[in-house]
């Protein structure tokens, strides 16, 4: 039991070392791509936490991702050179100027009715703070209502699904402040102590890789706390937990909010490496894709879901660019999902655990070398 847990942590360590070493062998184009996939890996973690550990299948995780993305994108938009047109020293997003009514004052405070909302985003750190606070606040309010009312199972999925679509509509409709369908593009670079994170340089990759490692370890530790164990108990039998004296909705809301926090953080990082934020983040298909990543990787495993996301995106990028597969790719990914759900309900992580179990029972005295057992899960970054 103990040694199994140690192997688990060894695999986490191997994964982290691996993503740290990747820049040695990859060019900057692929490094930028991989950085995006690592961000998706973080989304996999968020899904595993709410679906695998809390038993809450959120089909609107894109809402939190999008909230984080837009908050930082607003700040980076104002920091972009495209917002300083016409020789002004006060930033105004270009799309607001294009759509401004004749004679409107070309300042952020009053170029249109809602543009004042952008004022505090002139500070990058306000954007960062909001990118974390907004997803958590939404999750907290939503969770408090839904879980207090004891809505569970597929009904939570339907509510989250409807909500993400609703917000997507509102975002597109609020064109004067959000640039609607086009989203926020031509963003400036994220700055940290004078350093500018050009999405195609190695330090930016490390910003993502380190963030992912921290989230990975924190999430794993979180599910090992007493609260994490109680959460899993609640997932297994809500009523039993309730009659043992636990305030079930408080636990569900807390972990739902943590999952939202991680998704919001991922959204911000995605904006840094991709230089845009768009309503497509809140497309239903994107939220469902996240669930597929977690299912393939193993929703009951934090690292499994993370690797699942990275792996599927790596394969997807390679295969969909191969001629002949470009169109068929979506069908293939659908097929993989169906097969995994039918024959490998615990995903890649479940497979890896079975291998480890077999390895331990065969040679009980010697601790298993991490590299050996890591084989099945280390493929994505090679």
């Amino acid at each position, binding site marked *: 039991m103990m040694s199994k847990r140690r192997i688990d942590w060894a695999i986490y360590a191997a994964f982290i070392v691996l993503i740290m070493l990747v820049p040695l062998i990859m060019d900057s184009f692929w490094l930028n791509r991989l950085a995006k996939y690592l961000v998706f890996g973080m989304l996999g973690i968020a899904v595993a936490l709410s679906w695998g550990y809390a038993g809450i299948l959120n089909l609107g995780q894109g809402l939190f991702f999008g909230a984080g993305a837009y908050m930082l994108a607003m700040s980076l938009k104002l920091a972009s050179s495209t917002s300083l047109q016409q020789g002004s020293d006060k930033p105004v997003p270009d799309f607001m100027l294009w759509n401004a009514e004749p004679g409107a004052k070309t300042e952020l405070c009053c170029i249109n009715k809602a543009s004042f909302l952008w004022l505090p985003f002139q500070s990058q750190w306000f954007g960062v703070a909001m990118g974390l606070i907004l997803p958590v606040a939404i999750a907290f309010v939503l969770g408090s209502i839904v879980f207090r009312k004891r809505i569970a199972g597929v009904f939570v999925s339907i509510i989250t699904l409807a909500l993400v679509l609703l917000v997507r509509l509102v975002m597109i409709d609020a064109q004067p402040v959000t640039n609607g369908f086009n989203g926020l593009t031509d963003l400036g670079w994220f700055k940290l102590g004078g350093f500018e994170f050009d999405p195609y340089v190695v330090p930016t990759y490390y910003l993502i890789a380190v963030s992912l490692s921290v989230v990975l370890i924190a999430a794993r530790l*979180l599910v090992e706390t*007493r609260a994490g*164990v109680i959460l899993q108990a609640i997932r*297994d039998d809500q*009523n039993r937990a309730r*009659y043992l004296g636990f305030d079930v909705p408080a636990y569900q809301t807390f972990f739902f909010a943590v999952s939202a926090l991680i998704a919001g953080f991922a959204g911000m990082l995605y904006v840094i490496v991709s230089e845009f934020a768009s309503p497509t983040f809140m497309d239903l298909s994107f939220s469902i894709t996240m669930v597929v990543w977690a299912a393939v990787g193993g929703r009951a495993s934090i690292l499994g879901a993370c690797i699942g996301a990275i792996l599927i995106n790596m394969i997807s990028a390679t295969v969909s660019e191969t001629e002949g597969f470009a169109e068929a790719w979506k069908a293939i990914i659908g097929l993989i999902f169906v097969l995994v759900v039918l024959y490998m309900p615990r995903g890649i992580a479940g497979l890896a655990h079975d291998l480890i179990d077999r390895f331990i029972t065969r040679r009980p005295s010697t601790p298993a070398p991490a590299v050996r057992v890591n084989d099945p899960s280390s493929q994505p970054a090679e």
Partner: protein
Amino acid sequence: MAQAALTIDGLSVDFEGFKAVNGVSMIVEDGELRVLLGANGAGKTTLMDLISGKTKSTGGRVFVHDTEITNWEEHKIARAGIGRKFQIPSVFKELTVRRNLEVASCKNPGVFANLGFGFSAKAKIDEVLELIGLTEEAGQVAAYLSHGQTQWLELGLLITQDPKIILLDEPTAGMTQAETHKTSLIVNNLKGRHTIIVVEHDMAFVREIAERITVLHLGQVLAEGSVAEIENDPKVRAAYLGSKGIT
């Protein structure tokens, strides 16, 4: 005279005109083991639902010692000292047996208070594992337990939770004779340490554990007394047991 652990005063519930429990009053003393008898639909399980907060009552009051707990939220009633075992055994299936008990041992209900690692009740849990006979299965996932073992594990959850009052809803449902006997040993072991209320149909089991029996009929208390008194009560015979007595 012993103190009242649980006082029920005129408790009623009205399901759109149908009174499943209608003005039930009873006092269960500290450390007592009380058996609730009654035909199907007599209101036994509903009475437990009312006490534990699963169903909200429409009349009457419930007290644990001197605290009124009428219509509190379930987890608050649990924290006030009432533990409950369900008719259909419910445990945390994907956690190991030990983990199940660890969760039950957690004295602090809050999320933030539980952001630390490790449960501290190892000695207590080992003792409970011994009592419910699952020491060897401690590392096993609860989903793999047999039906009887699952029932015992749920009893173990209650023992670990250590409430003042334990409500047991048909703890021997679906058990073999040997399993039923073992369950009666576990329940007898709890006598005196906890106040226990049992709903049960299995008369062999009732004889093994019962001190006092309350008979419910159509949502009301029909009779109360020792096994012998109940067996010889003509009202009970007429309403529930038939003319042959308890067999």
